[in-house]
């Protein structure tokens, strides 16, 4: 029996057994070992891949240290985003204010690196000591002629989701700047693709083959100049809906660009994403290209997946990821490998998201919101999962239990998006689940003995 905190009882349900609607979108219970992060983290992870912008973290050192190289958002050019800049506030600054330090730091950095734009992230302390960051940014902006954008991401001001919103506001300020560079009639912006392990490049290639121009990618392998013309694209295609829907809505309102939500993970969702875009443009040639692309990619992929599926058929998986959209894709992708999802949850899902998860999972599946390691490991064990999909903090938990693991968060080194990403995913899941190392796990050895 897995113990669940009283206050969290309604945040966990078993499909087919529990009839209540899953509680979600609420603050974590104080005292829980939550896997969630803060507002600052949310804005930092989203804006981080804009590679030719300066990212200065205004606050004490920790916030900058922990988000330095937080995720492998690759750049095809400048790599300014990968350095860690901090005003490194000290006790005196906390007492007397950090505005002067911020001004000096910004000036030094802009002189040194000549960035295309600058983001200044406000951390917890800034909200408390009340530095007028907007004023400092405006002053520096005037003096240096580049946009200097304050990102109000004080850690305590909500959840990671609020950080996404702050990031969207920041990114939005970069749009609407370039009204001259020609933009195609068949043009889109990719929103919420972060170019982990080069995924943006895979996706961009698909669109190119379809005959569609990617005007900008916000924010994967991002450039300030590209985002400047984003407002003239015809469609926004939102991948990480949790983080970027807000920006899409802002752009819809301001520039009249419609948006669709997609996922690039798994065969169905990837294909659907491309078809949805093709549908939008209602152009015969594009539709033909898309069909051809999907046909050739899928027919290449399926026989190769079958190889992995042979070994994975009937295995079970647990999924615990940040965004719920990713969870949907995982459930479907695992099904292609013959695997059933027995535990699934997210840090930030909405009521509709969890209803959808209920729809696509089997009876008996545990669905959870904002879980903690004790619960998670309990349910994994109870349901006999052979694999856990999660992020950095979940990996060693899976290994300790003697089951396979696949990182589907910041730390992954494999591109998992697109058709080739599906193949990487299958390979990683296969190699982890069928690794001979598990036969040395005492738990497995015991189970084996019992069988004999």
């Amino acid at each position, binding site marked *: 029996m897995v113990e669940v905190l009283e206050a969290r009882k309604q945040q966990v349900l078993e499909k087919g057994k529990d009839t209540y609607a899953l509680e979600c979108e609420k603050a974590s219970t104080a005292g829980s070992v939550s896997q969630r992060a803060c507002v600052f983290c949310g804005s930092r992870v989203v804006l981080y891949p804009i590679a030719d912008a300066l990212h200065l973290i205004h606050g004490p050192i*920790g916030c900058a240290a922990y988000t330095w190289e937080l995720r492998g958002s690759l750049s095809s050019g400048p790599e300014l985003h990968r350095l860690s800049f901090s005003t490194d506030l000290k006790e005196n600054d906390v007492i007397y204010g950090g505005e002067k330090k911020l001004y000096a730091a910004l000036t030094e950095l802009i002189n040194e690196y000549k960035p295309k734009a600058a983001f200044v992230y406000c951390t917890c302390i800034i909200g408390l000591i009340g530095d007028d960051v907007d004023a400092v940014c405006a002053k520096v902006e005037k003096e240096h002629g580049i946009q200097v954008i304050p990102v109000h991401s004080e850690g305590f001001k909500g959840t990671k989701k609020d950080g996404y919103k702050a990031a969207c506001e920041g990114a939005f300020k970069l749009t609407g700047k370039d009204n001259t560079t020609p933009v195609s009639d068949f043009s889109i912006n990719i929103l919420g693709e972060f170019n982990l392990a080069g995924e943006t490049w895979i996706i961009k290639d698909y669109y190119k083959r379809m005959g569609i121009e990617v005007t900008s990618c916000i924010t994967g392998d991002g450039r300030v100049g590209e985002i400047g013309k984003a407002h003239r694209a015809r469609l926004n295609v939102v991948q990480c809906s949790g983080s970027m829907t807000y920006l899409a809505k802002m752009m819809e309102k301001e520039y009249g660009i419609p948006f669709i939500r997609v996922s690039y993970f798994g065969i169905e969702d990837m294909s659907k994403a491309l078809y949805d875009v093709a549908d939008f443009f209602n152009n015969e040639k594009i539709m033909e290209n898309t069909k051809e692309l999907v046909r050739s990619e899928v027919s290449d992929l399926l026989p190769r997946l079958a190889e992995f599926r042979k070994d994975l058929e009937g295995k079970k998986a647990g999924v615990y990821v940040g965004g719920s959209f990713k969870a949907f894709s995982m459930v479907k992708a695992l099904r292609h490998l013959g695997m059933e999802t027995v535990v699934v949850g997210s840090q930030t899902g909405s009521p509709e998201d969890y209803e959808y998860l209920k729809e696509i999972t089997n009876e008996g599946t545990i669905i959870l919101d904002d879980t903690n390691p004790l619960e998670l490991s309990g349910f994994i064990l109870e349901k006999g999962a052979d694999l856990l999909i999660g992020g950095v903090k979940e990996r060693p938990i899976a290994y300790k239990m003697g089951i396979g693991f696949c990182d589907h968060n910041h730390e992954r080194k494999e591109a998992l998006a697109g058709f080739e990403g599906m193949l990487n995913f299958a390979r990683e899941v296969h190699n982890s689940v069928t690794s001979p190392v598990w036969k040395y796990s005492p738990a497995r050895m015991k189970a084996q003995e019992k069988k004999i």
Partner: protein
Amino acid sequence: MLLRHTPKEVVERSALTINPAKTCQPVGAMYAALGIHKCLPHSHGSQGCCAYHRSALTRHYAEPIMASTSSFTEGASVFGGQSNMLESINNIFALYDPDIIAVNTTCLSEVIGDDLNQIINRAIADNKIPKGKTVMYASTPSFKGSHVTGYANMLTAMVQNFATNTGKKNKSITLLPSFVEPSDMSEIKHIAAEMGIDYIMYPDTSGVVNAPMDGKFHMYPKGGTPREKIIASGDSRYALALGRVGTFQAAQLLDSKCKVKTEILDLPIGISATDAFIDKLRTTSGVTVPESITVERGQLVDVLCDKAQYVYGKKISLMGDPDILFGLVQFCKDAGMEVIHVITGTPAGAKWDRRIKELAGPNAIVKSGAQADLFYFHQLLQNTKPDLIFGNTYCKYIARDMDIPLIRTGFPIYDRIGHSYFPITGYRGGLHLLVKILDVFMDRQDRDASEEKFELVM
């Protein structure tokens, strides 16, 4: 390349840290707390801090790192975090059942002025803390010190909360290690055990963050110092604190609070510091150094003699944590290497600066504190290129940019494993370290040798 643009010319910066050579206090406090058996670290602030610290330790140790958070929201930030903390205490004991909750503060809870003493007393008064359980805390804002300071503060809190002088001395010697790997904690214990010494050591993260895989997830692995031992340290005959920056405050408190005579030594890294540690154990306990230890020492010295020519005269640059740097610098000198740069992001104090300068030699550049960051380190290296870098994972960018070998030491190490299993302390750790150094130089010699000079035996 990532660091292509780092300019050679060193310009004084005052307002800016680029690529920090340190991180913040709570992660060190969390690590220290993990070194007590059945202790759950708790972060009093917003969720992000706790998530970051857990991630950092998870990456470094590849182990499940448990810690809870007060989950501050805007309300808590305005009205204070007392209710969050009290609720946390309730929930933690109800669900996770630790023996001890070790609270570290964050910038946020420090700036709003939460009085943890008062909150904990309130929890005691309200009977929220079950019998036999403890809630302790250390003040660890990020705007002061570094991860090493955080470690030191939590270690001090252990003395403050547990060490008790009953008036009746026991036979033990208390050992207080600075922020080192679990493998180093094991090595220090190994030396004390070989010497036949009755010791109490805390914190002790061995068996906690390098625990074996047994098919289960354990909220509290088997390792860690039992709290009874920490309590008993107040009656110990003698205390040795190893590594000044990480232990000074705790050692002083143990001395003043429990009247335990304490002495501070350098971490036993390298030959001379290990010699000093063993000699101190010998004289304070009246034991003789056993043959087994003499053999370990002899082996280290032997290998150093055998291959001294490969390391002699090599130029070394080091960045890292202040206590570890002492041992490393001394070890480099013992091996005939030339130390040219030593930096630490930890504001280790003027005394540290002076001592390490003395140790490293008049030509070495030494810097500690805020602007002693990796940007500065890179600039120094561009002006005088060393043959080898000691430092944490983040040095890999400099190492690659300048084609200099890097031996990973200190915290954090995200991209290599082994540090939590193989020590750098003691003679055995010295041997391990020496082999690493030799590998680096000999590999390089092989790599760079012309065809006719490429030989089998070295």
